[in-house]
C-alpha cells in the first residue's frame, strides 16, 4: 500500500503544474477549486468568529453595555448568516468533497468542471454581497428571517442579505448536482457502490439534500424579499397571510440543512476512524445506508422547530416521533465507529484526537437534540440557551471537529507537507476543552430559562455566562492555532509521503500532492473500501 505510483512520480503535481494567479482563478481542476474554497471558507469562518466574539464579550456583563441593542442583534445575525451559509454548508462538501470524491472513486475530475468553478464564484459573489449589506447597515432579523419581523419591521438591507444567501444557495445546488452526477457516472471500472469509501456515501446523501431542499429556501427568501421590497405580501398577517407558513417553508430547508452540515462530517469520521484503527469499518452497509436514511427522514422532521409556534398539537406529535426515528441512523454510526476500534491497531495522531472530539461532542449534541424532540420538555427549553448549546454542539462542536479532523488528515495529501503532530494534538485538546467550557454552561442557562438572542439578562445568570465566555476564549485560541502551524508547514514542514498514515483508499495510492489528472492511468478497482489486512500485524508496525 505504501509503494508509490511510479507514473504519478513523473507527472507534476496539481500545485506545480501551472503558475500564476490567473491559472488559479480560471482553473477547472477540482483540487485547485477545493483550495480556493478552503481559502474562502476560512475567511468566512474568521469573520463569523469575530461576530461571535463580540457576542460573547457583550454577554460577560448582564447590562448590555458594550454594544447597543441593535448592534448586538446585528452581531448575532451576522454570526448566524455567515457561519451557516458561508462556512458550514460549503465547508466539507465544497472543500473535501471537491478535492477527494473524484480521487476516491478513481475519476479524473468532477463531472462538470466549469460548473464547479462557477459555483465557487457564486459563493464569493454572494458572500461579498451579503458582507457588504451586513457591514454597511447591518441586519437584525436573526439568520432565520422570521416574518413579519423581517418583512415589515426591519431595514432595507434585509433584501441585500437575502439576495446574497439566494446566490450562495445556487452555489450549493451546483456543488450538490456535481457530486451526484460524479458519483453516479464517473466511478472507475470496478468501483461499485459498495466499494466506495463511506465519505462518498455521506456526501451523496448530503448532495441529495442540497439539491432538493435549497430551492425551497430560495423561493421562500424570494417571497420575503418581494414582500419587503415591493410590498407584495404573501406572509402579511393584515391580508390574512400566515406567518407560520413562512416557518414551515423555512424549516423545510433549514432542518435538512443541519444534516447538510453534519453528514459530511460523519463521512470524514468514517475515514478518520478506520485510518487510525487500520481496520475495516464495522458494519459497512449499515453506516452507508444510515446516511441515506438520515437524508430521507431528515426531510420529514422540520416541524419539531415549531412545537410552541402554534402548529396543531397532533402535527407536533408526529414530528416528535419522526425526530426520534432520525436519531436512530445517527446512533448506528456512532456505535459502529466505537465497534471499529475493537481489535484495531490504533495510531493516535492529531486527526484521531479530532475524531474523538467529534464523537464526544456529537453524542452530547445528539442526545440533547432528543430532549428538544421530547414535546413537553421542548415547551420549556425551546428558544432558550439549551437550544443554542444543542445546535452548537452539533454544528460547531461536531461539524467543525469533522472539518478540522479532515483538514489534518488530508493536509499532507492536499499540500504535500507534514505539520507538527504535537501542535496538532495540543490544538485538538484545547478545542475539546474550550468547547465544552463554552457550551456546557449554556445547557444549564437554558434550563434555567435564559432565552436566546438576549442582549441583556437577569443578574443571576451572570456566573454561567462568564464561564461560557471564558471557554470561548480558550476555544478561539484552539481554532486559531491550526491556522498558524498549518501555514508554517507549507514552507517548513517535511515532505509528505504518499501514504503517511498507512491508510487504505485510492487517494493514498497517488502521489502527495496528486498530479493534475489524479492518476495517470485510470485505476482498476478490484478491492473493497478500507482494505486493511484482516489480522493484527500490519504494514510497517
Amino acid at each position, binding site marked *: 500500500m505504501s509503494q508509490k505510483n511510479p507514473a504519478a512520480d513523473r507527472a507534476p503535481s496539481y500545485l506545480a503544474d501551472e503558475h500564476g494567479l490567473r491559472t488559479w482563478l480560471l482553473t477547472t481542476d477540482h483540487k485547485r477549486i477545493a483550495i480556493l474554497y478552503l481559502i474562502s471558507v476560512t475567511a468566512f469562518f474568521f469573520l463569523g468568529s469575530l461576530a461571535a466574539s463580540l457576542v460573547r464579550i457583550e454577554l460577560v456583563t448582564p447590562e448590555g453595555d458594550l454594544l447597543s441593542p441593535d448592534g448586538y442583534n446585528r452581531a448575532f445575525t451576522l454570526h448566524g448568516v455567515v457561519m451557516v451559509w458561508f462556512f458550514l454548508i460549503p465547508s466539507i462538501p465544497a472543500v473535501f468533497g471537491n478535492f477527494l470524491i473524484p480521487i476516491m472513486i478513481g475519476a479524473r475530475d468532477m463531472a462538470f468542471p466549469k460548473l464547479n468553478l462557477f459555483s465557487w464564484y457564486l459563493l464569493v459573489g454572494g458572500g461579498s454581497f451579503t458582507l457588504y449589506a451586513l457591514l454597511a447597515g447591518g441586519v437584525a432579523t436573526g439568520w432565520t428571517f422570521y416574518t413579519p*419581523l423581517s418583512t415589515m*419591521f426591519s431595514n432595507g438591507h434585509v433584501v441585500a442579505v437575502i439576495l446574497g444567501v439566494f446566490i450562495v444557495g445556487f452555489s450549493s445546488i451546483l456543488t450538490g448536482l456535481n457530486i451526484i452526477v460524479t458519483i453516479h457516472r464517473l466511478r472507475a471500472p470496478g468501483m461499485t457502490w459498495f466499494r466506495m469509501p463511506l465519505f462518498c456515501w455521506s456526501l451523496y446523501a448530503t448532495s441529495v439534500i442540497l439539491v432538493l431542499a435549497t430551492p425551497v429556501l430560495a423561493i421562500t427568501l424570494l417571497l420575503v424579499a418581494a414582500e419587503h421590497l415591493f410590498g407584495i405580501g404573501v406572509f402579511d*398577517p393584515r391580508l390574512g397571510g400566515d406567518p407560520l407558513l413562512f416557518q414551515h417553508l423555512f424549516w423545510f430547508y433549514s432542518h435538512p440543512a443541519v444534516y447538510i452540515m453534519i453528514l459530511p462530517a460523519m463521512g470524514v469520521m468514517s475515514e478518520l476512524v478506520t485510518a487510525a484503527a487500520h481496520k475495516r469499518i464495522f458494519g459497512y452497509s449499515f453506516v452507508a445506508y444510515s446516511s441515506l436514511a438520515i437524508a430521507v427522514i431528515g426531510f420529514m422532521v422540520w416541524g419539531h422547530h415549531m412545537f410552541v409556534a402554534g402548529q396543531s398539537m397532533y402535527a407536533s406529535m408526529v414530528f416528535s416521533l419522526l425526530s426520534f426515528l432520525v436519531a436512530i441512523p445517527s446512533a448506528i454510526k456512532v456505535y459502529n465507529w466505537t*465497534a471499529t476500534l*475493537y481489535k484495531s491497531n490504533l495510531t493516535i495522531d492529531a486527526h484521531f484526537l479530532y475524531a474523538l472530539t467529534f464523537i464526544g461532542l456529537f*453524542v452530547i449534541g445528539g442526545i440533547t437534540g432528543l430532549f428538544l424532540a421530547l*414535546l413537553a420538555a421542548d415547551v420549556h427549553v*425551546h428558544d432558550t440557551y439549551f437550544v443554542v448549546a444543542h445546535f452548537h454542539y452539533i454544528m460547531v462542536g461536531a461539524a467543525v471537529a469533522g472539518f478540522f479532523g479532515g483538514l489534518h488528515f488530508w493536509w499532507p495529501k492536499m499540500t504535500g507537507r507534514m505539520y507538527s503532530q504535537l501542535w496538532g494534538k495540543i490544538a485538538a485538546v484545547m478545542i475539546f476543552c474550550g468547547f465544552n467550557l463554552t457550551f456546557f454552561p449554556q445547557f444549564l442557562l437554558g434550563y434555567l430559562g435564559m432565552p436566546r438572542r*438576549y442582549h441583556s439578562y437577569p443578574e443571576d445568570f451572570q456566573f454561567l455566562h462568564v464561564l461560557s465566555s471564558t471557554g470561548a476564549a480558550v476555544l478561539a485560541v484552539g481554532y486559531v492555532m491550526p491556522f498558524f502551524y498549518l501555514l508554517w508547514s507549507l514552507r517548513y514542514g517535511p515532505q509528505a509521503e504518499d501514504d503517511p498514515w498507512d491508510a487504505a483508499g485510492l487517494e493514498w495510492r497517488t502521489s502527495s500532492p496528486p498530479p493534475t489528472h489524479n492518476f495517470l492511468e485510470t485505476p482498476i478497482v478490484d478491492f473493497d473500501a478500507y482494505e486493511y489486512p484482516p489480522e*493484527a500485524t500490519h504494514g510497517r508496525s
Partner: protein
Amino acid sequence: MDDEFLRLWPQAASDHAHAIDWLIWSFTGMMAIFVVPVFVLTILFAIRYRKGTRVSRDHRPRGSMKVEMTWIVLPFIGSMIIYLVSARLYYEVKTPPADAMVIQVVAKQWMWKFQHPGGQREINTLHVPVGRPVRLNMISQDVIHSLYFPALRIKQDLLPGRYTALWFSATETGRYEAFCAEYCGTDHSKMLATLIVQSPQEYQRWLSQSGASESLAEQGEVLFRQFGCSGCHGPAAVAKAPTLEGLYGRRVALHDGTSVIADQAYIRDSILLPHKQLVAGYEPIMPSFSNVIDEEGVLRLTAYIQSLGEGEQGEPHADSPRNPPPEETAP
C-alpha cells in the same frame, strides 16, 4: 427571584414543572445507559488496541447483524416509552380545562398587556391566584412574540392574526420572571414581565384595589356602540345581520355548507376579515374593521358578545344548516 449566588436549577411553581423535571431526569438516565458505554468503550479500546500492544487481534469482526439490531432496537424501544410519556404531558399542557379563568394577553413591541375578566389591566405584570387553572388567550399586535414562564416550564408563541393559548395552575405563591422567548426586534431582551402568584384572598384584594370601573364585557359594549356594530347587529337594527345573542360557542352554518364553532378565533375573523367565513343566508356586506379596531378592542368586543349568552356547544341538531329567516334579526 431569590438572591442566590449561583442558581443552577430553576424554581418550580406548578405540578407541571415538577413533571417536566422528572421527565428530564428520567430521560437523562435512560440516555446515559445508551451513551456511557460509547464513551467508556472508545477510551478503553483506544488504550488497549493502540499500535504495538500485545493483545489478541484475531478474528476481527467485519460486522454483525445481531449486534447492529441490538443497538437499533433497544434505544428505539426506550425512546418510544419516553416519547409516550412526553406526548401525554404535552397533550395536558396544550389542553386547558374548561373551567379555567381566562386572561387576555396582547403583546406588542416591546411590552405585555394583560387584562382580567373584571376589566383590570396591567402591563408587564400578571397577577394570578394560586391553585386555580388560568388560561391565557394571547395574540400579538405586530411581530411574533413568545410568552415564557421558566418557573412553570411553559411557553407559547403569540402570533399576529391568530389566537394561541397557554394554561397553567400555579401551586406556589411568589414572584416569578417571564420572558419574551421569540426574537422580536431591538428591545427583545427588555420585553420582560413578572408573574405574581397570590393566595385567592390577596388576589381578590388586588382585583378590587386596581378595580376597573367596567368589566371587559362592559368595555366591549361601549365599543359595540362606538363602532356602530349595533346599527346592524343590535336588536333594533334594520340591516340584515345575524343576531349575536347566544352566538358564542354555538355551531354556525356557513354559506358554503360547512359549519364552525363560534369561538374567539371565529369572532375575531368575523370582525376583521368578515367574508372569510360567511354565515349562510347572509350577503357579504359587512365591512372589514381591520384598520379600525386593535387587538385589545377585538378582545373586548368578543367578551361582550360572549356576555350576550353562550350557545350549547355541539347540540345534536346544530349540525344541520341553520338558515335564520331574515325577519329574525328585525324586531
